[in-house]
């Protein structure tokens, strides 16, 4: 298509939008409502995910070593952990370090443990590992348990299961809501544009008789849909950006207790605003273009 004709059709799309300003406004309103809900679900889902990751990283799989394990056995466990794909980080805690840690927990009462120094130390040495994939924690644990010199393992499998369920719920729930709302938005926008198309069905018929291709007729309407989608995306971005920024600001400055802890894990506005804008624009364009293309289908069969 020649650029001058493309420009002409895009201009027609803008004119359509202006002429149907009231209906366009209604469409924008509906799409904004849908995108706001989509955005809230998305933000919830990624923050739940981030929170679950945080909890997961706090979960240690602890490999306790027999007191009489040989240095070779300890080295073998060390190299096994080092080469294991599911272990993100690990560190070795010697018997002495374990005791010091306990004394530290007890604070001023730590002195009570003074007598357990040296050979009297009942605490075992251990490897403390964080895992990458919580779903595979049981398998990793079983592999470690089979090694010589390993006394026992502390594996937080139940918590791991809860976290996995939480992440899955956030992902599938968010995806489900998203799919439903995108569908609703497309139906609404296609109905709005259908009114324009219906009002102009005679014109469309004339265009067909002078030899216009479907793409040529469709373009201004798609442009109209994309304008509606873009404005809706920007408005949604404004609303949710403001709300999210305010929420984070509130949590970091005034929240106490567990809420304050949660606020440190939430994804910051600076890390997410460009994703939000991009996602809203892509959804807005998709909804707008798909909505108008669907609404035209019937009237193009001339």
């Amino acid at each position, binding site marked *: 298509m*020649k650029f*001058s004709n493309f420009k002409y059709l895009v201009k027609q799309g803008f004119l359509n939008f202006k002429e149907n300003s009231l209906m366009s406004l209604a469409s924008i309103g509906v799409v904004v409502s849908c995108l706001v809900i989509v955005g809230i679900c998305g933000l919830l889902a990624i923050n739940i995910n981030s929170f679950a990751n945080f909890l997961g990283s706090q979960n240690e799989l602890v490999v306790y070593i027999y007191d009489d394990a040989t240095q070779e056995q300890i080295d073998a466990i060390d190299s096994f952990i080092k080469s294991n794909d599911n272990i993100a980080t690990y560190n070795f805690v010697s018997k002495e370090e374990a005791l010091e840690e306990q004394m530290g927990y007890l604070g001023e009462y730590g002195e009570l443990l003074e007598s357990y120094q040296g050979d009297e130390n009942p605490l075992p040495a251990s490897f403390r590992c964080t895992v990458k994939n919580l779903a595979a924690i049981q398998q990793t644990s079983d592999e470690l348990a089979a090694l010589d010199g390993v006394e026992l393992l502390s594996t937080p499998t139940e918590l791991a299961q809860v976290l996995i369920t939480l992440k899955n719920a956030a992902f599938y729930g968010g995806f489900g809501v998203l799919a439903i709302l995108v569908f609703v938005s497309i139906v609404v926008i296609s109905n709005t544009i259908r009114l324009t198309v219906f009002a102009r069905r005679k*014109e469309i018929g004339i265009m067909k008789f*002078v*030899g216009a291709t479907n793409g040529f007729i469709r373009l201004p309407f798609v442009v109209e849909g994309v304008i509606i989608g873009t404005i809706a995306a920007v408005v949604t971005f404004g609303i949710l950006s403001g709300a999210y920024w305010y929420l984070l600001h509130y949590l970091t400055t005034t929240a106490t207790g567990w809420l304050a802890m949660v606020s440190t894990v939430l994804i910051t506005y600076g890390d997410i605003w460009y994703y939000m804008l991009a996602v809203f624009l892509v959804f807005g364009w998709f909804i707008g273009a798909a909505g108008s293309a669907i609404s035209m289908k019937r009237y193009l069969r001339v």
Partner: protein
Amino acid sequence: MIDFKNVTKVYKPDITAMDKVSLHIDKGEFVFVLGPSGAGKSTFLKLMLREETATSGDVIVNGYNLSKIKQREIPYMRRTLGVVFQDFRLIPTMTVYENIAFAMRVTNIGEKDIKKRVPYILSLVGLSSKAKKFPTQLSGGEQQRVALARALVHSPRLVIADEPTGNIDPELSVEIMELLKAINSVGTTVVVVTHEHELAYKYAKRIIEIKDGRVVNDTAGKAVHAR
């Protein structure tokens, strides 16, 4: 140019609008397709424009077999012909100039050529001064001339006019018919679909008469007399 080969069109449930019609219209001919209301003229027109498809038989227009044409080829087929409708079918939101320019844009002609061609075509139909008017600001005869200008803008090989004088005054009808004659004189095939016997016999070219979905008379227009 136009070939109807044993064409039948049946509308559901069982209305036969065209019954085994065969006819041939050659390049450069000026043909009247004549018949009363309900004779099958509209069906004939719709089949030529591929608005409808034949139930059986072949309709061939400008080399396109419309019974077998692919959906995406239809716009290209329509660009090879110019159509003038009884109700003009101008786009009311566009000026006279834009209505004609639009037909050119559709065929992907650039702005530069449009700016050259549209004023020329408007001068041919005597509407240069009305370029900026909207269709509703024009008389019926003027609107019909705009429709004709639009049909001619990309120099089609075939012009089909559906009751071109149906909605305009008799003196303006003469004007339109003279324009169609002029178009035909430079080699363009012209097919006029009408119910007006007098008009057909006055311009006494070839007349194809349709009645009850059949061709009842097809004459080269030499010894025809108005009934």
